Each structure stands twice: as structure tokens, then as C-alpha cells.
């Protein structure tokens, strides 16, 4: 008896028909040509870019001719741009853009590492990059859990501070670094609990609460830090060992990067997949996403929206609190005032770059870790043409470019930041 409302489907633009993309096409063509110009005009002909496997195959070094490499990479980027200009199937656009961006970035890297004295120590740099991506990873994962349930968590910075501080304190008091990590998680939990309470029970604007919680955490940890200074041995550094996975650690590249790291790395990577699984494969995840997307719908199906939000946000604090421990325990450092240096805010950006998806967040955090590490490496090797400050800007500039150029309007969960009042319709 069903009557069809659609006897014929509407016309669909064929995604495989070539379409022109003028703006990105022009941009990539110009950037590619620029690289080619650099290759021939700026790089001197004899220059080489050295890639070393510094931890496993210490005697292997690849010396590649810089001019040729940069020119080839430039050509790839330019070709991608040209393809966009003459027209390419729409569904290939993302892939081609990604190739163009990668080629351009690699070209710049080849150029940067062509200076005498600079060696691209692939293994150390990649291992360092993974380690440096952790604070962004933890912060952004915590953000994902909160915002997927519809609560904006601007307070990650504050939760980091609380975790960093408490982690050291608890480790000192108990003498056990792992107790310190648990302490950091609990501190994170308690501070997000305040956010959760205000956001659900008191329906306070979440952005506002986040800003306030950051201020509160900064004031509180700085104040307590001064208090603790008066007593000996409450703020001494604790560290965790680097785990080496026996023969696995000797695999070139993979070994040093994956099998010779601190426990924080493994927890971080595991969390990405755990959070992903929980969000997309479990009852909790289904309800969480529903609550973040359309709380009234979830409510009408008997899901207690504010209770779920409360606990999700509270539990997300475990992750960001643990991220706080990275600053102190993972780095074998004591606590210092405002030591998180704004990374919590950057983690927020990583969350958006990762489109509120744990796997995307992993990618975003790695981009950040990598650019930070490369910038530090170039700055330290002293051979860079660019002033150190500009190298340090690299991660931020890359994020800007990625967000503006490739991501565009990222779509947040629809009810993100909207307090839910069960009486509303």
C-alpha cells in the first residue's frame, strides 16, 4: 500500500566529471612554481639534503641532491595545481590537495635541511614528534568526549594545570610516580566536574565557565605552588622510564618511534582507539552522540540528557588531567607556574582540525608535534635562514593554513554548547 514519494531520483552532478577549481588550483600552481624557482635560484647546485637513521642504522645516511628533490616536489605540487585548473573529478579534490600540500611541505623541508650542518635525523625527529603531540592529543580527546555530548570545554588549559600540579604533588607525597598519574587524573576529573555541574545543573554558559575555570586553575595552582615552596620535597621532579620493546626497538624508523617511548605514548595511542570504539560502537557512544547532536530527541527516548552530559564531562577530565601529567611527569619536571603555556588552547584547535573525531584528532596532533619538533630541530642546528621565532611560529601557521584552506567550516555537534533544559521543546 505504500505510495512512492519518489518515482525518479533527482539529477546528481556526476562526481567523476572534471570540474575546475580556480582558487586552490592557482594557489598550488604558484606554490609549486615557487619551489622550482627556489630549487634553481636559491639552492646552490652542490647542496645535499642528508637523511639519517640516527638510532638504528647509525652508519646509513642518504645524501640527496637538494635541487633535484625540491624541483621534483615543486613540480608535483604545480602539477596538482594545474590539474585543478584544467579540471579534475570532484571526488579526487581532497586527495589531490593533500598530495599538493604534502609535496610543498616536503619541498620546504628538503630546502631547510640543505644548509650545511643540518641533518634530518628521521628517527629522533619522528620519535620526538610523537612525544610532543601528546599534550594536544590528550587535550583534544578530552574535548571530543565533552563536545560530543554537547558541552564545550574551553577549560582544557586549566585541567592541564591542575593535572600537572597534582601529579607532581601526589607523586611526592606517596613517593610513587604512578600514584602521581592517578592523582593528575583525579585533579582533572574534579575540575571538569565543576564545569559539568555548572553547565548542566546551573545551565551556565559553557564558554564562560571554561574561561573562568582556566583563570581559577591558574590562580589556584600558582597560589598553591607558592604555599608548597615553603615545605621541602613536595614539588620534586618524578619521571617514568622509557620502555624499550627488545628487538622491536631495532627496526629502522618504526623501532625508535613506536617501540622506545614512555608509557604516556602508549596510553595516548590506545586512548585514541578506545575513545573511537566507545563513541561509535557502544551504547554509551550512541547516546553520547545523540545527546550532543539533538538532546531533545535523546530525551524523548528516555535518555537522561543532563546526567549523561554530567558524567561524560566529568570523565573527560580524567583524560585532560592525565594530559597535565605529561607536562611534569612525562618530561621529568617539577611543577612551575603557568607551565602549560597555552597548549590547552592549541589542543582545542587540534580537536576542531580533527573534526571531533578521535582519529582526526590523532592526525591533527601529529601534525602539530611534527612541525614543533622540526622547528626546534632547525632552530637548534643553527643553520636556518629563518629566525628562530619564525620557525617557532610554524605549527601555528600550519594550523591556520590547514583550517582555512583544507578544513573550512568544520561542523560541530549540533547541540554543542547549548544547555539542555528538559522543559524546552
Amino acid at each position, binding site marked *: 500500500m505504500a505510495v512512492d514519494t519518489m518515482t525518479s531520483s533527482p539529477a546528481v552532478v556526476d562526481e567523476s566529471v572534471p570540474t575546475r577549481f580556480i582558487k586552490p588550483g592557482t594557489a598550488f600552481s604558484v606554490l609549486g612554481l615557487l619551489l622550482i624557482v627556489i630549487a634553481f635560484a636559491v639552492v646552490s647546485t652542490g647542496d645535499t639534503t642528508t637523511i639519517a637513521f640516527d638510532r638504528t642504522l647509525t652508519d646509513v645516511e642518504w645524501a640527496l641532491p637538494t635541487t633535484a628533490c625540491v624541483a621534483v616536489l615543486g613540480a608535483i605540487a604545480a602539477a596538482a595545481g594545474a590539474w585543478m585548473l584544467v579540471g579534475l573529478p570532484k571526488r579526487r579534490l581532497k586527495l589531490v590537495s593533500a598530495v599538493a600540500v604534502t609535496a610543498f611541505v616536503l619541498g620546504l623541508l628538503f630546502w631547510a635541511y640543505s644548509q650545511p650542518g643540518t641533518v634530518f635525523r628521521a628517527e629522533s625527529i619522528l620519535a620526538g614528534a610523537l612525544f610532543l603531540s601528546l599534550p594536544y592529543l590528550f587535550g583534544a580527546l578530552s574535548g571530543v568526549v565533552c563536545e560530543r555530548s554537547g558541552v564545550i570545554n574551553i577549560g582544557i588549559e586549566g585541567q592541564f594545570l591542575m593535572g600537572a600540579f597534582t601529579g607532581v604533588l601526589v607523586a611526592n607525597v606517596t613517593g610513587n610516580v604512578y600514584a602521581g598519574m592517578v592523582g593528575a587524573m583525579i585533579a582533572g576529573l574534579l575540575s571538569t566536574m565543576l564545569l559539568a555541574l555548572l553547565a548542566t545543573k546551573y*545551565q551556565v554558559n559553557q564558554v564562560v565557565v571554561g*574561561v573562568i575555570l582556566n583563570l581559577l586553575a591558574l590562580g589556584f595552582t600558582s*597560589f598553591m605552588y607558592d604555599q608548597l615552596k615553603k615545605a621541602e620535597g613536595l614539588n620534586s621532579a618524578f619521571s617514568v622510564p622509557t620502555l624499550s620493546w627488545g628487538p622491536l626497538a631495532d627496526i629502522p624508523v618504526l623501532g625508535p618511534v613506536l617501540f622506545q617511548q614512555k608509557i604516556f605514548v602508549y596510553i595516548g595511542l590506545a586512548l585514541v582507539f578506545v575513545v573511537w570504539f566507545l563513541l561509535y560502537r557502544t551504547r554509551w557512544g550512541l547516546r553520547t552522540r545523540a545527546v550532543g547532536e539533538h538532546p531533545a530527541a535523546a530525551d524523548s527516548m528516555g535518555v537522561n540528557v543532563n546526567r549523561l552530559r554530567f558524567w561524560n564531562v566529568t570523565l573527560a577530565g580524567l583524560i585532560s588531567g592525565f594530559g597535565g601529567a605529561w607536562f611534569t611527569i612525562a618530561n621529568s619536571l617539577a611543577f612551575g607556574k603557568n607551565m602549560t603555556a597555552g597548549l590547552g588552547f592549541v589542543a582545542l*584547535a587540534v580537536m576542531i582540525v580533527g573534526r571531533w573525531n578521535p582519529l582526526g584528532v590523532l592526525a591533527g596532533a601529529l601534525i602539530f608535534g611534527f612541525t614543533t619538533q622540526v622547528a626546534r630541530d632547525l632552530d637548534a642546528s643553527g643553520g636556518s635562514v629563518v629566525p628562530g621565532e619564525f620557525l617557532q611560529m610554524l605549527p601555528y601557521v600550519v594550523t591556520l593554513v590547514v*583550517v582555512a584552506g583544507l578544513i*573550512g*567550516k568544520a561542523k560541530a555537534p549540533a547541540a*554543542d554548547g547549548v544547555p539542555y533544559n528538559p522543559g524546552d521543546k
Partner: protein
Amino acid sequence: MSTDTKAPAADQPDAGETPEAKPSFMRLFGRYLTEANSVMVTIYSLILAFLIGAILLIVSDEYVRSTYTYFFARPQDALSASWYLVRDSYIALFEGAVLNLNTLDRFAAGTAEFGDLLRPLSETLTYATPLIFTGLAVGLAFRAGLFNIGAQGQMIFGMLGALIIGFSFSLPAVIHLPLAIIAGAIAGAAFGAVPGVLKATTGAHEVISSIMLNNIAGLFLVWAIGTGFLHSETKSDLITKPVDESAVMPKLLSGLSESLRVNWALPLGIAAAVFTWWLLSRSTFGFRIRAVGFNEHASATAGMRIGSTYVTTMAVAGGLAGLAGAALSLGVGSSGITTNTALEYGFDGITVALLGRANPGGIVAAAILFGALKAGALSAQPDVPVDISTLLQAIIVLFIAAPALVKAILHLRTPRGGLVTLEAKGW
């Protein structure tokens, strides 16, 4: 961000309430006091914050803490020690921010001048001035539904812009000073417009781009100060050249005492607040900002250009933050700026804007309150821990943002028209 009353969300008023024929003034007043209206919530927030601050002070003082170890044996020790500690601490804050009682005595005895009496107030206003500008920068953007977390970076560029004009020329002050101020505003506006342009053209969220731009601006400042162009010719420390005499903000009360640092940036800030108020509530541009801020779809349907509204709003906000920078580099930092001169005024502007409910008048008041906390804390150290001021700020704003919390703690009644809450857009 709006300051509007959410009428429908109102809780139930006390059951069976019937309007009385002619309530006496005292009754009305008492009713007002026990109601969670915005004035009383603000007052109670301050009181609650200072109460919590008192607890922290007591906990942090070793001696007072020790008196609590024998509290049950001799409670009067602990109580009087606590009382004196809290009293003295708050008096110290008050003396640093408003009026130093010592100086008052000396003034009465004829050993201090009237100008000395005003010094705490002058300090309060000096610290409040940049906050007025950055608070306005954040508040204005809030009204267009934009979260301008980038005031810090905009201020840094404003600082550099004003500084460069300030030391590059030697002109009559009537031309030079305004020129340098305008340069600061333009530099801040240009930098502030960037997130607006990115949002309008690519949809990039202004919060991310502003955070990135803040970091970029901070690093740019470090680099710029070290360059030969800006770096001080006489000092090897990381400090810039001083601005020319003719571009220095004249002190407001130098007639009374040279040590009164408050300068003409303060009246400029008040003028900026008045301008912002006019812009928001009287001008057609403000009409558009608010319309877009509340509902961009309806605004677009009514023919308003959303993208250009974002760009202009962010540029104006950036210009205001740029003025904060100009106030610093031509005022207290006129002998050269360092990487620390900007402090966190840009980020504090967010808190000020929230506390002032994105209202120019409220922002000025909030900025002065924060300036007082800062000046008080600075002068009260080492007796009062410096970070108490940050904590007090956070707690005050927390309560003000959460009137429901204040209402619940103090069992206040819901006012007619419901609780006034702060509104800000999500992502």
C-alpha cells in the same frame, strides 16, 4: 552574547503570591535585596568571592593554621588570628587600590601631599586602562556572535604600531600623539580583521585562527624587539627604543604629583566605551552587528552581508585592542617595551567583558574592579599572596556568570522576568 532576559525559562514564583495593594518602601527594598536580580547577584558575588578568599588566606597562613591545631582547646586564638589576618589582608588590598590609611595619617600630619593620597587610585586606574580597551574589544565581538579570543595578539600589534610611529618621528605633540594612537588602532584593526576575513571567506572558526594568531603575534614581538630597527640603542636588554617625548601620553594628574601614573589613555578609554555604546545601541552598524550576532540567517535574509559584518566587527574590535597596545607603549611603557609589557591584558579582557556583560558601561566598571584587584595585590605583597588577586577575579566572575548558583547558595528568590544569564554562542 547578549544581556537579555530569558523570560520563558523563569522558575515558578512563590505560589499563591498576590500583588499587595501598596507595599511599603522598606518591604520593596527588602524584597529587592533577597532577589536574584543582576545588581544583587553582582553584590553577592563580590561578597561570596571575598569570603572564599578569606578562607584561602587563612589556610595559606602558617601561623593561623597552627592555631587551628588546638582549636578545641582554645578556639578564641584561632578565631582572632583568622579575623586579624583576613582584616589586615583586605585592608592591605584596599590600601593598595583605593586609599592608603598610612598616607592619610601623614597627610593629616602634614608630611604627605594630596597627590600621595591619590596614588593607589591612580594605580588602580592605570591598570584598568588597558583592560577597558581589551574588554571592549571582546565585548563588541560578542555582540556579533564572535568570540574574540585574539585581543592579546591585536594588542601586541597595536603596541608595535604606536611604538614605531612614536619613535620614528619628532613632531609637535598635538600631531604626533594622535598619529601614534591611530597607528596603534590601525595595526590592531588590521591584525584583528584577519580572523574575520578567514571566517567570511573560508569558514575557518575565529577561535582557532585567533588562538594561532595570538601565538604568532607573541613570537613576532620577541623577534621584532630584537631587530635593529626596534631594539634599544642604549640598552642591550631585550627592550625597544623609547618613544619620542612628543608621543608620550601626558600624565593626567602630573600637576598634583609626578608619581601619579594615570595618563590620558584613561579618558581615551572612557571615550572608546562611549563610542562603543553608541555604535552598538544607536548606530545602524550596531543594529547590523546585533542582528547578525543573534541570528545570521534572518539577517542574511533581510539583506545584511554577513561576511562583511564579521570582517568589520573584528576590525573594529582589533582596533580597540590595538588602542590598549597604544596606551601601553605610549603610556607606562613609553621608555621602551619588552616581551612582558603586554602582560595578559588581552586574555583578561575576556573576563572583563564577561563580567561587564558585554556592555560598555559594565566593561568600564569591571575593568576598574580588576585594575583595583591588580593594584591592591601588587602593593599588598608580600603580606598577601599575589595570586589571591587572580583567584578573586575568577571566583567573582564565576558567581556572576552563574546567578543560579548564587541563588541556590543564598536561597534568593527569582526576580520577575527570570534570571539574567550570560549568553555566548557555541562553535
